[in-house]
């Protein structure tokens, strides 16, 4: 039987927007097994990004329970949440979100730094990841000196730095041309084959079809 890595039980997330309350996610139930490749699809404003933030422990639910690796993350301290984010989850963002003042290599070593990995180990691992993603020649470049596709691959390398169980990608190809986008998607599929749980958030059905499972969200409901 496959291991359940993510479980949402009746999760709600409300925002205050001025005087009104926006119910971004409503009574969501979701189970994702280890090694799955899930696409969360929905139109913009449907709550899919909020859902991703909840899964990635970037945000806490207003109601309901979220389990990561069978651990309820609702009552964890900020420090513990940071540890979980760093260790168990790798984020890939639409706008790459690299640190502009750090080189590609330094960007990739950073998550390991927060997990107290030794300096030597950090560098070896980061170099290996960049090599695998075809960025060996670019490791000492700043993000501003890299193309969009290259930046996203650096971001992927960073997401993989601590060898997380889950990779969360929010519109990972949104800012890329179709060729680079395909490449990123191939990398994600490849990672899934190696056993990583991949969750991508997208509004692009073409991309979602590459996933093994599609979760549709509309008006905050799954």
């Amino acid at each position, binding site marked *: 039987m496959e291991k359940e890595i993510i479980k949402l039980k009746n999760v709600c997330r409300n925002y205050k927007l001025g005087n009104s309350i926006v119910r971004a996610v409503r009574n969501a139930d979701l189970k994702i097994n280890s090694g799955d490749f899930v696409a969360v699809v929905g139109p913009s404003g449907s709550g899919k990004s909020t859902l991703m*933030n909840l899964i*990635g422990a*970037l*945000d806490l639910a207003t109601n309901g329970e979220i389990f990561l690796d069978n651990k309820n993350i609702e009552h964890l301290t*900020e*420090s513990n949440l*940071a*540890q979980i*984010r*760093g*260790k168990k989850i790798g*984020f890939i*963002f639409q706008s790459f*979100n*690299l*640190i*502009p*003042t*750090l080189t590609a290599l*330094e960007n990739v*070593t*950073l*998550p390991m*730094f*927060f*997990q107290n990995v030794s300096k030597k180990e950090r560098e070896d691992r980061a170099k290996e990841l960049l090599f695998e993603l075809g960025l060996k020649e670019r490791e000492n470049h700043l993000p501003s000196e890299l193309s969009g596709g290259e930046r996203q691959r650096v971001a992927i390398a*960073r997401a993989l*730095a*601590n060898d997380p169980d889950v990779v969360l990608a929010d519109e990972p190809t949104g800012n890329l041309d179709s060729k680079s986008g395909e490449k990123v998607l191939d990398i994600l599929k490849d990672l899934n084959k190696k056993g990583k749980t991949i969750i991508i958030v997208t509004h692009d059905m073409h991309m979602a079809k590459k996933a093994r499972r599609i979760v549709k969200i509309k008006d905050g409901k799954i």
Partner: protein
Amino acid sequence: MISKEMMVYSLRNIWNRKLRSFLTVLSIFMGIATIFIFISFGLGLYEYIEKTTAGTSADKIIVQPKGAGLIGLSDDFVLTEDDLRAVEKSSGVYEATGVYIKAVEVKQKTKTKYAFLTAYDPKKPLIMQISNVGVDEGRGLKSGDKGKVVLGYNYKIKDKIFSEPYELNDKIEVQGQDLRVVGFFEKVGSPQDDSNIYITNDFIDDLYPDKNNSYSWIIAKVDSEKIKGVVLDVENNLRKTRDVKKGKEDFFVQSFEDLIKSYSIVLNIIIGFVVLIALISVIVSVINTSNTMVTSVLERVKEIGIIKSIGARNSDIFDIFLFESGFLGFVGGVLGVLLGVLFTTIGGYVLENLGWGFLQPSYSPYLFIGCILFAVLTGAISGVLPAINASKIKPVDALRYE
């Protein structure tokens, strides 16, 4: 503690905002430099006081006029032979002597200058023991040295007091009389002291024949163990001879130590006041640094979100921003101290050449370390609130922030 990697990250952020960082540092280092300059000159003055009074002054007391009359210029205040006897017979007094201090006219060719003349008894050179200045050239005064003078150091120097320097055995015109130079005193380092003229006290009536000359100071050598009691007894005896009531004295008696102490107190107040003003500029720089850090946090909200999403704890973020502001303080402190050293060195050199050689800076390692630590501390304090704010930013909000 912050790690090397985070330091590199912080330093690059500071470097990326060069202009703003520079302006912030500028505001810090002005204050630090000011504090450094005044404290180093203050230390120099303390050292000077200590050096010139060391050892020889603990057993001396001085009787001086109280009130407005300036020594040597005013004839209102008179200390007579009777007063000297009164001091001499007080218990605990070993010896006492009267000293005349007068303003005199000194002439070289057509040039006239005014200087202070000190007349003392060469058998009881208590005043010279207090000031701790030795003879530089020639000899000191001897009893019966009529028509002879010992000059302050500056008379030896060309263009200092007069265009022509004096040498031993030269004649110098004082109060219309030609006197022979028998010696020069060592350099003191203040223009007034270095232009003093010294004669024996039994020559004063020859120099001022038509005046009823009286002492400006009475100096006594006393039992230093009982100095407080001696001062009281001298006061008591002087009240009797001068016929004044307690609380209405026109004189005051002080041990030389107390006199120096009262100078030191004035010095402390002046230095304290100036440092206080400098501290205000430091407070301004704290506000300025805070402002820089608040802006820096706002600019980097998204970055804070990113590093939180890859595992940074609140404390990591706090450390980064606190380090940045502390580092700005450190740079400001180092630059402030460097500027302070430069300024005090030049200032000391200029003052030396103007004849104010006793006004010299003094550097202690504590001053350097203290100034830099103080700068780091003010920088860090400025950064505390912005750093707390930065660390509390929620990652989900931060990532959405544009």
